[in-house]
């Protein structure tokens, strides 16, 4: 059986949060957190998703794993065993008739039933941004890391304890840490515990939601090294969600830039940093501070006017046009329709009227 090249394909995902209010609790408006996003991730790569606060990238990550129910759209996960054997034994046949799978190893994450979702979940895990709130403060570490193993009945008793110790050692902790509470650990250590929990079931796909934002510089380097090693050892695919462009430059293979719920540019890392097309990407790159003092005076920061608009009432047409420093008369038409992501050069997609071929 041929393993598909993509591990994840996402099409036209929308996640709108309703705003209810008033006596009758009628819907007053919607927060368009994710507004028709499509992309695909190749097996084994690190896919960077960049954007600033409120652009919807965290919501997108959680929706893909169906930890939040999407408003509409499709997400396909391609499952395959390292051994090449079909892992479908045990997956219920009934889902096949609903045409949620047209190929043996493809699963429509949003449409499968609860039991199959649970079976798939072990292959798609997430590491959250805040190590302080993603661990249950009243549970011991051994129980936190052991929970997935228990739920999926992978091990129990002494065997379970051994496996948990194994996982902790893999992420750089020791068995002395088994019987402790989260608040006894530093941020970096807690993040390691979260990573141990995420890899407990040998997943193939990991969503990393700002994995090092809450950590110090030297700790960040440790965690990044750990993540790189794990990716090599376990053959993981990463969706790296972050606002830190230096991190993306360091780790990612391909990058997607998100603004106010939409993807504005997708390219390989080299293309994005070397030849950014979308005005937002350019502004973002110019604003990143560089720890090299000599570059201080040659840097030209592109300042965006105004503030980020609210996702409740995004601007009509091109979401970025009110702040765009490169707005042209052509963009006036943007008030009526929005530019779609189009391939400008091979592998480099951008949603901007300036690059439209028509």
């Amino acid at each position, binding site marked *: 059986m041929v393993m598909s090249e993509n591990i994840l394909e996402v099409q036209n995902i929308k996640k709108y949060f309703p705003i209810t209010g008033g006596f009758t609790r009628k819907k007053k408006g919607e927060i368009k957190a994710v507004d028709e996003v499509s992309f695909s991730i190749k097996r084994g790569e690190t896919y960077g998703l960049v954007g600033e606060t409120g652009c919807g990238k965290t919501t997108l990550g*959680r929706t893909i*794993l169906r*930890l939040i129910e999407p408003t509409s759209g499709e997400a396909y996960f391609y499952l395959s065993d390292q051994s090449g054997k079909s892992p479908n034994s045990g997956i219920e046949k009934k889902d096949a008739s609903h045409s949620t799978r047209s190929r043996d190893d493809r699963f429509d994450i949003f449409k499968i039933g609860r039991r199959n979702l*649970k079976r798939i*979940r*072990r292959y798609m*895990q*997430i590491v*959250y941004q*805040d190590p302080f*709130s*993603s*661990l*249950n*403060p*009243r*549970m*011991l570490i051994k129980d936190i890391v052991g*929970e*997935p193993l228990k*739920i*999926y009945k992978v091990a129990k008793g002494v065997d379970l304890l051994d496996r948990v110790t194994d996982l902790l050692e893999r992420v750089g902790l020791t068995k002395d840490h088994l*019987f*402790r*509470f989260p*608040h*006894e650990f530093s941020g970096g250590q807690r993040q390691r515990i*979260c990573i141990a*929990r995420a890899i*407990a*079931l040998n997943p193939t796909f990991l969503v990393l939601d700002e994995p090092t934002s809450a950590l110090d510089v030297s700790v960040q380097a440790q965690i990044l090294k750990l993540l790189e090693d794990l990716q090599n050892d376990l053959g993981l695919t990463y969706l790296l969600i972050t606002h830190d462009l230096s991190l993306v430059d360091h780790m990612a293979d391909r990058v997607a830039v998100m603004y106010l719920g939409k993807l504005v540019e997708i390219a390989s890392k080299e293309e994005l940093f070397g030849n950014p097309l979308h005005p937002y990407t350019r502004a973002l790159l110019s604003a990143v501070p560089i720890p090299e003092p000599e570059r201080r005076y040659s840097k030209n920061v592109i300042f965006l006017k105004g503030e980020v608009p609210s996702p409740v009432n995004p601007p009509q047409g091109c979401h970025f046009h009110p702040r765009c420093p490169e707005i042209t008369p052509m963009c006036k038409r943007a008030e009526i329709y929005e530019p779609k992501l189009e391939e400008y050069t091979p592998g480099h997609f951008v949603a901007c009227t300036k690059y439209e071929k028509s």
Partner: protein
Amino acid sequence: MEPRLKELRFNLYRIRNNPISLIGLGLIIFNIVIALIAPVIVPPNRPNPYKIPKIFSTEPLPPTSEHPFGTSGPSGYYDIFYGVVWGSRMSLRISFTVISAALAIGIIIGTIAGMCGGIIDEVLMRTTDVFFALPGLVLAMAVASVLGRTIMNLMGALIITWWPGFARLIRGEVLKIKQETYVEAARAVGADFFTVMFKHVLPNAIFPVIITASMNLGSIVMAAATLSFLGLGAEPGTAEWGAIISEGRNWMLQGAWWTTFFPGMAIFIYVLGWNLLGDAFRDILDPKLRRTIL
């Protein structure tokens, strides 16, 4: 289990260092001790130790060495000292029974409402509102007149009045905890609804409720005493502080101060003790106030 012991030691340290809580703890321990050794202090009345044995008298007598707290009546004159001592047992019985039952009902209903949301939440909460609106007094009167004046009925009426508060409280906590990241993380590793509810949400949501409950232990006795005082709870002649005060009311103006003073003091000490201890519990068990690191 070592880390949990460490936590316990930390909590005890906090209690030890908080003078208010020490006073509260002292008062409570005093009450419990008296309740435990009641049979030793005053021999119990058979067959029902909670019925104060009657003595021959035509009027209440002031405190003497034979009757250290004096006597009271007129439903049959009796020794107040006996009443107060055995009353402490009665109060503990009432408080713990009512609070446990109200907690149990409240937690079940509140947790289900909070976890399920939607229509179940609406239905349960509106029902709770209805019970909330029932005035305890009226309910107790109804129960007393229809079913009779017994301690069991008194406790029943109090339970019905008390559980809605707990239900609302825990529902609020459940809603708050449900949004925490670690709950979603549990779902991400495959936890189902019940695992999330019992292993993640409840253990974290339950603390404010426990604290409120411990503070309520005093209020329960207050409420029971009030109801007895109004003639709706225990019958006069029962070893229950409120019942004793109820009778003493008649003699107050005639100068027999002891008929209400001693049982009143007993209530005061009991309620104060629980309130202080409950305050201290709240300060100690609040996870945000612990171990402030720079």
